């Protein structure tokens, strides 16, 4: 009886596997197309949907694949400069934002002080201000501050997003016991020492998640650098690859390899952080 039950269970799961696999294939096809195109010549991109067919291993003519697109991308078009800019912008923004948001979140979660309610409602109010409302006046502000065409003009406005403050407060309210902080104070630990050695380790998953959120957001930001930066030397990949399309629009292989270069680092970082990222992402919605 128990055997048939297990078998029945398996049988019931079979259509689930089929559905999931089909959905998985649909999800992966654009990636596969992208990766294949990046390694093909333009003629082969039009001739074959995926890998060039031939009589090599698995019926694929591997010899027709080429690294030329990447070579041109880095050597002739200097996309390495944009890659460096993207890494710098995204990593710096992620670290600074995570640091500043966790500080503010800690203050709101674990300190009682006059004005805390006011600050908390400011945070909640800031959550609903749409970014596009701030585009025009933000541009004027950066102009007034002389920050147009500089990295600072992109990093500073995103130093402490209200969303991050909110997430860290939510995480710390439960994860950091007040007694632990009090006893550390009794032991004579300084406030910053408490924050670094006690509070931060306790919200480690949230740190991983928020790093990923801000890294991803900055890396994929297009409208910001498009408006603020004017010097091609400082363009991140999002802007640089799109401009590549203007000048080399007919060169699909080049565009595809550029797109691949742009999304591969993010996928790598995600693999490193995926557990924490997904947990952190949902904590705001599920708990809040």
């Amino acid at each position, binding site marked *: 009886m128990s055997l048939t039950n297990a078998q029945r269970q398996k049988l019931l799961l079979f259509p689930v596997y089929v559905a*999931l696999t089909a959905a*998985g294939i649909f999800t992966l096809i654009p990636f596969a197309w992208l990766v294949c195109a990046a390694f093909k010549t333009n003629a082969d991109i*039009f001739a074959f949907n995926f890998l060039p067919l031939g009589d090599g291993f698995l019926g694929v003519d591997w010899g027709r694949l080429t690294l030329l697109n990447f070579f041109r991308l880095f050597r002739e078009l200097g996309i390495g400069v944009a890659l460096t800019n993207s890494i710098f912008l995204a990593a710096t923004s992620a670290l600074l934002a995570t640091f500043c948001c966790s*500080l503010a979140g800690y203050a709101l979660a674990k300190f009682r002080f006059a004005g805390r309610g006011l600050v908390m409602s400011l945070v909640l109010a800031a959550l609903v201000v749409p970014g596009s409302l701030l585009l*025009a006046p933000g541009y004027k502000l950066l102009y007034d501050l002389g920050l147009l065409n500089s990295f600072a003009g992109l990093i500073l406005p995103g*130093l402490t997003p209200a969303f991050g403050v909110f997430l860290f407060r939510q995480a710390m309210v439960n994860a950091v016991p007040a007694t632990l902080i009090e006893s550390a104070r009794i032991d004579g630990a300084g406030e910053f020492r408490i924050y670094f050695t006690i509070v931060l380790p306790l919200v480690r998953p949230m740190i991983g998640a928020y790093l990923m959120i801000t890294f991803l957001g900055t890396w994929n930001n297009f*409208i910001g650098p498009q408006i603020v930066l004017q010097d091609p030397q400082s363009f991140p990949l999002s802007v640089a690859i799109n401009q590549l399309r203007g000048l080399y629009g007919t060169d699909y292989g080049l565009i595809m390899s550029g797109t691949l270069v742009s999304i591969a680092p993010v*996928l790598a970082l995600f693999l490193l952080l995926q557990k924490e990222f997904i947990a952190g992402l*949902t904590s705001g919605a599920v708990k809040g």
Partner: protein
Amino acid sequence: MSAPASASAPAAPLAVRRYRAEPAWVPWVFLAPFLLTFGVFLIWPLVQSVVLACQQTFGPKSTAWVGFANFSFLLHDPLFWKAVRNTALFAAGSVFLQLPVSLGLALLLNRPGLRGRTIFRLIFFAPSLVGLVFVGLLFSLIFAPRTGLVNTVLNDFFPAFDPEFPWLQVYVMPALILAALWLYAGFNMVYFLAALQGVPEELMEAAALDGAGAWHRFRHIVLPEILPVGTFVVLMSLLGSLQLFELPYILLNGPGADNRGLTIVMYLYDNGFVTGDLGYASAVGWVLALVMGSFAFAQRWFNKRQEES
């Protein structure tokens, strides 16, 4: 609250000596970066945008006061309403197509005894890591007539399918909604999956023993449990859809033929940063903010009513 006690309570001298109150300046130091950036990069631009919305500008330098003219022109501009219509269509597509797919995937992944859950979740989630810019680049080639992946494959399987099928010329919104489905279905699935984890298993088993059908169990046990997350996800995808810009902008290289891919934020961008009228752009921004604010308000109201009942 501990300060007066330490001054006048001789009964507990030991505790008072050892207990160090949190210094009043500490939270303010910790909050300083937030308060500073909040004031400079949020409050001040918001105040500015009210002023700007009543001006016509040519870049930040040349400005002229026009009062409410921006708003009255905006509300009478058929192009703006076209942008509203397109954006609303996209939002509807997101909510009514993408979210059910997300929920479906989550329900499938949540089946007890399923193996390979992590790898499936990873695959479905992966597209949402790709920025809208890059999705736009990728799909502009995927949807290309005659040479794009979609048309060549459909034409291979169904020779009657027109290989010139004009996704990016005529069927812009379906193309955008499909691209967004690929991009976001896995992202929203993660939220539903987390919520489904909160559905008590005993309850499901008990219902199954009572002979409750799958739909009945979903309707009466699963749905109430995931409703708060559900409304949150609906709100998030509504707010995201309303701010749609990069995807059509890159996919169509602008608003597209007959402005079929024009969205509210693209309308704002074109006016503010191409023709240089930051004032008009601010007016558009305020209208958008009001719409988004009312959606957020509606969600809160709905959730509150649910909790009360």
